């Protein structure tokens, strides 16, 4: 069974170059993020490159410091590496929370139908039209010293409805399939039908839901950081951009502080979107380049 899934995944990837490239970029980024403590250590050697005044301030990029140093004398490369890890973490936290909540709400609403669906769909709809970002600004300005996890939760509160809405529509169409009826006359219970008959067929949609929530969260946090309202104690890509703008880093020749985080974010955005589009191409026959297979 695991072998089969692996083979199926590999075949899917081979058939879609977009998906393959997107996944490859993501994989590299995740690896960098996972090994970021080691990489940071490797850059700094005996000194911690993220310590204030670890080096001289505003060093231009050179062999010792590939991306230079910032206004406090920290190594920008090390900062970028650990910031990438923070950005991916917030994406993962918010992605997981909103996917799980979205999937549960979608399945309950879509499968149960009736008044339960009515209430859940109305609630989902209400959350959908709330302008998220201004509210997020208000929330983080109000809550002093929010942690990364709290920001993740705040962002997920507003991003699960998107996942819920698309998945619910799919559940509605799948639940009246004859194979669901067959499972019911084979004494399968609701939960069993949902997990074994419906869920596997919805994996691509759940994947898309996860990717877009994660992306939303990463950029939500960047947005907060750029206006200086991010969580304390952590540096993410947005905060580096904020520092660069604030200190006029570009005029001091410290262009990597501004350019590198933006390039990384653009790459991340492109990669997640390529995965999204690739998954849709694979699972939506109408978008396939060539008919048949």
């Amino acid at each position: 069974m695991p072998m089969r899934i692996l083979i199926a995944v590999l075949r899917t990837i081979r058939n879609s170059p977009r998906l393959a490239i997107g996944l490859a970029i993501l994989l590299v980024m995740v690896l960098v993020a996972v090994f970021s403590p080691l990489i940071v250590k490797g850059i700094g050697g005996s000194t911690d490159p993220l310590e204030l005044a670890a080096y001289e301030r505003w060093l231009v990029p050179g062999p010792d410091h590939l991306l230079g140093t910032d206004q406090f004398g920290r190594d920008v490369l090390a900062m970028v590496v650990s910031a990438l890890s923070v950005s991916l973490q917030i994406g993962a936290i918010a992605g997981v929370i909103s996917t799980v909540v979205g999937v549960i709400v979608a399945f309950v609403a879509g499968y149960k139908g009736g008044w339960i669906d009515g209430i859940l769909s109305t609630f989902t709809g209400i959350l959908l039209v709330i302008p998220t970002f201004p509210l997020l600004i208000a929330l983080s300005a109000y809550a002093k010293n929010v942690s990364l996890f709290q920001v993740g939760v705040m962002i997920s509160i507003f991003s699960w409805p998107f996942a819920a809405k698309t998945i619910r529509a799919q559940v509605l169409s799948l639940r009246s399939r004859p194979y669901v009826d067959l499972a019911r006359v084979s004494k399968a219970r609701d939960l069993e039908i949902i997990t074994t008959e419906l869920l596997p067929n919805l994996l691509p949609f759940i994947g898309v839901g996860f990717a877009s929530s994660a992306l939303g969260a990463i950029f939500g946090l960047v947005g907060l950081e750029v206006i200086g309202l991010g969580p304390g104690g952590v540096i993410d890509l947005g905060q580096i951009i904020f520092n660069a703008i604030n200190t006029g880093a570009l005029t001091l020749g410290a262009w990597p502080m501004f350019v590198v985080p933006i390039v990384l974010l653009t790459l991340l955005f492109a990669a997640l979107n390529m995965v999204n589009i690739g998954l849709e191409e694979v699972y939506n026959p109408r978008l396939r380049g060539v008919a048949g297979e």
Partner: protein
Amino acid sequence: MKSELELRNVQQRFHARGVAAGYITAVDDVSFTLAAQPPQVVSLVGQSGSGKSTIARNVLGLQKPTSGSVLYGGKDIFKLSRAEYDAYRRDVQPVFQDPYAIFNPFYRVDRVLWKAVNKFGLTKSRSKGLALIEESLRAVRLEPENVLGRYPHQLSGGQRQRIMLARVHMLRPSFIIADEPVSMLDAQVRKHFLDILLDFQREHGMTTLFITHDLSTVYYLGGEVMVITKGEIVERGPVSTVMHEPSHPYTKLLLDSIPQPDPDRRWTNRITVDELEDQERADAKAAPAPEAPIL
């Protein structure tokens, strides 16, 4: 003891927009009894939208009727105890119309058969289970090595529909609810399928409720027939009687609609259900019912 399956004054309404009453009546005051002994084939004939599939869903417990009751062994199927429910599920099994949609595309076809083995506790041992599956596949004239381990899209419609029959063969229910099982099969496979159903009746004593719009298959199967239109059963009796001396105008219309393999007897005038409805408008009361529930 073999049980009876009885529909008592079953009525099924579905909410619908744009209809004056706010709902449409798919099944209207339908009562009939299927006896397990002696095993027989009872056909339920009607055009699309006459409510016949809804009746199948009621009988299978997939749709709770708006009023009236479906009784198994004298008890309402929606109020059974755990043990009675298990007996009912085992004893009343379906064959559905669409051999493509009946399989979850995510799994191999074996799963449907293994589910039957495991869910109904046919056997605990894997080797005995496999033996049962192979025996049942052979009973529906499928070679196990040709179908096991395959995905649904790798099999033909006839093969898939016969796997459903193999499932029924394993479970040996007293009642098969066959909802348009041959409408998507070609002529040769259709005969094959009907013969297997008749075999089941003879050899394993299964009673079939055969739901169809096609009178020629009803002819072929024989037994009893009920004619349904607009949710109401308008005529019932032995196939030979109903076919040769139809008493209801709708049955006559159905009989006239069988294509004759004879160019001299080609239809010359068009008969439509609408015309018939015009004649009947005086006493018509129910709105045309949809085949599938509108949710």
